[in-house]
């Protein structure tokens, strides 16, 4: 028997394949395609205290081997999530990770507390994932995740307030992601997710306008995989806490690149759009690869990269 279960902080995952926030809705959208019990963890769409409308359309544009999205963090708000979506998710024997964000430290803290309280009251949320790729309204709209100071403040504040495992999702739009991960670790993060989307733009040359109503969007999909793998590798060298790798994972082989580079788990995003069963197929593929390679425990694989 091959062991592919992994631990992230206090979470036990049946397999290392999670869904990436914003690409799997609140779980139910894909429940017709995927047995949610077979996922390592379900990470839901990013939540904020109040519901959020997001950006005008077009919000999506395809680019070579990738896509830009500018959803603008549309979500139903934490209350609606807890009341309308969480009961469905509680049916499954799979950890639920609530991705959340705010536009000030205070909002982050309040969102985290609300999620922790809901979990304390009736369970169903097993960890928090902080999306820090949002601008800080109070500090001149500097993105939390690109400024080490701001990041330290917000992670420290949330860490203090939250009693669930805390995953910090790093922005790739930085000079030194290893350093940012270190800051997150020192501020109390239990794990880091690497990477969020890379900011990009597409231009409609006839109309002389950005294709996306929001001008720029986040690049995801196979195009960014080499960048994501490199960043995961850098982060794994920089921190001791577990790293969740993501960015362009379409197949089990892609996921294995991240695991070998040091990720303890992976998240599958854009791939779910092109293949709604991608998550479970990737988990199966990892198991198959291990059998082929004569490995019995996934921990033999994690971080096994022999680099020079």
């Amino acid at each position, binding site marked *: 028997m091959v062991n592919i279960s992994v631990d992230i902080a206090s979470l036990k995952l049946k397999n290392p394949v999670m869904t990436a926030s914003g690409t799997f*809705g609140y779980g139910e959208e894909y429940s017709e395609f995927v047995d949610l019990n077979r996922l390592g963890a379900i990470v839901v769409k990013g939540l904020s205290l109040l519901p959020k409308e997001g950006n005008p359309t*077009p919000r999506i544009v395809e680019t070579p081997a990738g896509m830009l999205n500018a*959803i603008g963090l549309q979500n139903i708000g934490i209350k609606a999530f807890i009341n309308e979506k969480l009961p469905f998710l509680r049916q499954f024997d799979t950890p639920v990770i609530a991705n959340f964000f705010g536009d000030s430290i205070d909002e982050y803290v309040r969102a985290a507390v609300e999620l922790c309280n809901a979990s304390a009251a009736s369970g169903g949320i097993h960890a928090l994932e902080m999306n820090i790729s949002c601008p800080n309204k109070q500090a001149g709209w500097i993105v939390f995740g690109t400024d080490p100071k701001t990041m330290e403040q917000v992670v420290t504040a949330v860490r203090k307030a939250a009693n669930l495992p805390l995953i910090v999702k790093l922005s790739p739009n930085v000079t030194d992601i290893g350093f940012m991960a270190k800051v997150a670790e020192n501020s109390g993060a239990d794990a880091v997710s690497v990477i969020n989307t890379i900011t990009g733009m597409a231009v409609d040359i006839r109309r002389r306008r950005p294709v996306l109503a929001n001008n720029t969007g986040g690049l995801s999909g196979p195009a960014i995989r080499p960048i994501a793998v490199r960043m995961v590798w850098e982060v794994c060298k920089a921190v001791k806490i577990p790293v969740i790798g993501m960015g362009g994972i379409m197949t089990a082989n892609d996921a294995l690149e991240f695991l070998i580079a040091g990720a303890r788990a992976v998240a599958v995003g*854009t791939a779910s759009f092109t293949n709604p069963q991608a998550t479970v197929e990737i988990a199966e593929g990892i198991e198959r690869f291990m059998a082929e390679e004569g490995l019995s425990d996934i921990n033999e694989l994690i971080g096994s990269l022999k680099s020079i």
Partner: protein
Amino acid sequence: MYRYFKAAVTGNSPVNRFFKLLSIYFPGEIITPEPGQFYMLQTGHTYDPLLKRPFSVFSHECSNAKDSNESSVTSNELKTKDKDLSLSSESSLQFLYRVRGKGTLGLAQMKAGDSIQVIGPMGNGYPAPEGDFIAVAGGIGIASLLPFLEKHRNRAYLFYGAQSREELVMLEKAGNAARETFITTDDGSEGRKGLITDVVKEFLNNSEKGSDKLSVISDKLKDKDSSLDSSLITHHSSLPLYACGPAPMLKALAEVVKGRGVKCYASLEEHMACGVGACLGCVVKTHSGQKRVCKEGPVFDIGEIAW
């Protein structure tokens, strides 16, 4: 019952120089699609193009394989290959499409025998009409409306606009399914020159005024009495409308029907990534909040849209 399956391309032939018809076959049970629903189709076998693209179901056939003896070569081949699939019935689907960019270009290159991943049927189709109705098709919008016309044969007053005569694809089929067909082209190469929504407006105005004179070149494709039955005239102005076409057409139509107290359903388009309601890429603003075109749509009450 699969909503995500790998089908075989059985045909992909040009209809004219703008349009092609893709036929696919799946040797298993699928969910019966309703007119107005759509499928997300794979358009290549690499990561470029990456995302599936949405296409309205143009036609479908499902037959119970156990009862039928006429199984084509392809179906037999697939049966032996995919032994573990439920073979209680087999299904064929057709899609009418126009080549626009790299996705449809990829689709156009598919050949019989190729495999194609398919998600669907997705979204909500057109609500059933109680009696007669008005259908407004702009260009390739006919792909979505034609199965609806055929399901409700001889009940539609079809208004069909396109850029040119050649772009009035499937005109004869559509005309045959409709009670009456009114045509416009942007260049005047067929029907009246102008916008189809202007003709719809005229039609509604005249019928409100109780006049049956519609100064429109009405294509009598079928041998039908073309002077409208007087008793029906006022009825016309209260018929429900069903529309599919480019956003500017739908927007104009929303203006036309505003305040007339008629039901008008429109099938909307938006860039889609997932097609299943997960990515929130395809939202449209409505008077009751944001809706996903792929999930709550693509057919909406046109009066609900906050243009």
